[in-house]
């Protein structure tokens, strides 16, 4: 299940939802707002998203992970709005029978989420400037 939220991500509640007596490995990735990007000191971040399509595409990414690695529980929640340093911008959790699938599926989901979903990030710098962040794939 993929969701967007304008509120603080409740990581405890998400972890509880992932529990499963058949799961032996649980892998989580969280993206946190850093105080620095490419030499700029960041004050805060702003996420804009086109939610209807972000949710459709996010659900598709999770379904793909579940097809590649059957029998896993997977969930991702992404923030919108204004975020401060240290805030959790995205949470991905995968519970699987074994750790290998848990790690690989978690990595697959965050990698695809970052390049496929209509979500944009504007950095507000301590200098007063701001800028839209280029996509990872564009930079590489």
């Amino acid at each position: 299940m993929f969701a967007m939220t304008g509120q603080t991500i409740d990581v405890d509640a998400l972890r509880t939802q992932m529990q499963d007596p058949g799961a032996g490995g649980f892998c989580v990735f969280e993206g946190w707002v850093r105080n620095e990007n490419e030499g700029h000191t960041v004050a805060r971040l702003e996420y804009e998203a086109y939610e209807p399509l972000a949710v459709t595409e996010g659900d598709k990414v999770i379904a793909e992970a579940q097809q590649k690695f059957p029998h896993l529980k997977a969930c991702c929640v992404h923030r919108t709005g204004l975020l401060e340093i240290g805030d959790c911008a995205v949470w991905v959790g995968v519970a699987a029978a074994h750790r290998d699938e848990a790690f690989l599926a978690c990595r697959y989901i965050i990698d695809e989420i970052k390049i496929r979903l209509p979500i944009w990030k504007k950095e507000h710098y301590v200098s007063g400037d701001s800028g839209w962040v280029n996509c990872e794939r564009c930079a590489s």
Partner: protein
Amino acid sequence: MKTITVRYFAIFRENAGVGEETLETDAATAADVFAATRDRHGSSEPLGHCKVAINDEMADWDSSINDGDVVLLFPPVAGG
């Protein structure tokens, strides 16, 4: 001529100064819409870095444009 709605997001919206506008166009494909509105969205990004959706479905740049379509122009995404 067709009448379509074009929606801009993030830096495209800021550049265009509006989130949405109605266009009369003879654009055949999504790429034509991107080119026709380049002055508005102000993008110097290669097309391959941007994305397009038509009527709330992700689309390709060579997807055809029909009268009444809502075309969403997405600058380079950066989730996570």
